[in-house]
């Protein structure tokens, strides 16, 4: 290792864990107004505060749920175990939910509130990612006249399944409310972006299955067949859920879930 590489490795290690190498300050001149320790401390402090501020921006509802002090404690442990890897700050929270799952504070005696925090972290990162994902703005969306066989999901679309109503909790925090921790309740949602507005769409279990099939490449007919088989729903009733008087088709098209493609062969998964 070169002298330069050694110096950079030691300084970076001192940022990640200020207590790991007390001799790290010997890297620096002791002159100046701050001295070696004082100057290094500014970088150490800035490293954590900057990342914590960005994490609070990515996870506002989780920060609300945990309280800022506890949230910051989680972030401190998280970035010590998983130091940022990519050039973009948007990537900071990518591993947060998995890290919380692996480092559950309730250990061998699972508690519901921890499950909620993990699910909330997963939803918030999915929502955060959707805001700047590749989308269909500038291109044509499907219309109500588009044939079912030509409907495909647009790129800025994601599905999620959770153990708690995390989407409604998240939106309540975003509205400035102070929601209480909810009781467990299965929650299926779609996230979709049109005109740079991200929409959260609550789903029933059959709707989720239908959209999951389409996300995997099925067309509408194959996706309807999937929910009939999975939930024992009569095919006519399944079609009615899709395009009947109270069906989802028109609203989903209006919300920008679909683009139109030339209908070709599709895989029936």
């Amino acid at each position, binding site marked *: 290792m070169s002298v330069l590489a050694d110096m950079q490795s030691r300084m970076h290690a001192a940022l990640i864990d200020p207590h790991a190498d007390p001799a790290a300050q010997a890297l620096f001149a002791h002159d100046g107004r*701050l001295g070696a320790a004082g*100057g290094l401390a500014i970088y150490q402090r800035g490293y954590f505060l900057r990342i914590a501020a960005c994490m609070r*921006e990515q996870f506002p509802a989780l920060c609300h749920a945990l309280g800022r002090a506890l949230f910051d404690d989680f972030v401190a442990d998280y970035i010590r175990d998983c130091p940022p890897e*990519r*050039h*973009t*700050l948007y990537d900071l929270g990518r591993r947060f939910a998995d890290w919380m799952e692996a480092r559950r504070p309730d250990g061998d005696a699972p508690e519901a509130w921890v499950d909620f925090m993990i699910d909330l972290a997963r939803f918030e990162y999915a929502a955060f990612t959707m805001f700047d994902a590749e989308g269909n703005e500038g291109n044509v969306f499907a219309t109500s006249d588009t044939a079912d066989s030509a409907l495909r999901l647009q790129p800025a679309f994601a599905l999620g399944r959770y153990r708690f109503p995390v989407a409604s909790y998240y939106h309540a925090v975003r509205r400035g409310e102070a929601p209480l921790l909810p009781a467990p309740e299965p929650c299926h949602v779609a996230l979709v972006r049109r005109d740079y507005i991200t929409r959260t769409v609550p789903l029933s279990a059959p709707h989720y299955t239908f959209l999951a099939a389409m996300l995997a490449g099925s067309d509408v007919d194959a996706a309807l067949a999937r929910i009939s088989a999975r939930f024992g729903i009569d095919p006519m009733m399944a079609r009615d859920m899709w395009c009947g008087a109270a069906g989802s088709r028109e609203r989903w098209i209006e919300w920008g879930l679909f683009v139109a493609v030339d209908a070709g062969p599709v895989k029936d998964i």
Partner: protein
Amino acid sequence: MPVAAADGKLAGLPRLGLGLGLRNVHFDAILSGEPQDLWFEAISENFMDSGGRPRAILHAVAERYPVVLHGVSLSIGSTDPLDRAYLASLKRLAQDIRPAWVSDHLCWTGVNGHNSHDLLPMPLTEESLAHVAARVRQVQELLERPLILENPSSYVRFAQSTLSEPDFLRALAEETGCGLLLDVNNVYVSCFNAGSDPIAYLDAFPCERVVQMHLAGHQDFGTHVIDTHDRPVRAEVWELFRIAWARTGGAATLLEWDDHIPGFDDCLAELRKAERYMAGDTVSSGAAECVRGGDGVSNPVGFLIPRAMASVMEDAA
């Protein structure tokens, strides 16, 4: 890219006048008002991987104003290999937006595969100079344009450093043909913390290589100062600007404001103060304001997305 070619391209860069850092809180004001005699500097990383509104906004701004790209994660001084994916993404953005130039900092942001998201100082040694020069040449070759590098603000000096920062940057520019971005607030911050003379720094700085200048505010903690980009430019920095701007022959000048960002018109008013000093007015010393407490986090980059995002929740599918 041979040095002579880089030098030639550098000489052909435009004198853009006064500009502002592109920040999301100003998007609507920038695009709704009449075009002004202004240019904008976009933080490259906030737009490189964007498939959402930020990239669309940058397109719209670039249709109306000159734009330059300013990076914070090139990590030109790191001993990790150059990040080819990052450079490819930066090049795509540059081909798309056609900035007047592309800049970053004389710093490293991480090592061993990690990123600190801070602009960390270089040991200023001959080894570092050779290392950085080789990487600048590679980047210029790939981007097909001279790189513009900024002097960072710093709070430590490596014990093994043997070169001053102005001497390091002069040698780097001569060896590679790169241009320089002179941040006079960083000069003040680094010199104050080091207990050295900022005028002597400017005297030694290769002002003839300066393509752009930065102005920004900092927090004065009495014992030290931190480059926070969260307040107006202080009198001491205006004085450095007055001296340096004349020496650069009128380099493009940009105001950075990254935290507690005021409205667009207030930022413009702060920027327009520069015209007085460009005309040669001397700076009257303002009352020194010391901050007691507070976070005082150096602010190399505004985090763009969260405050710019809009969302709704439907009642049911």
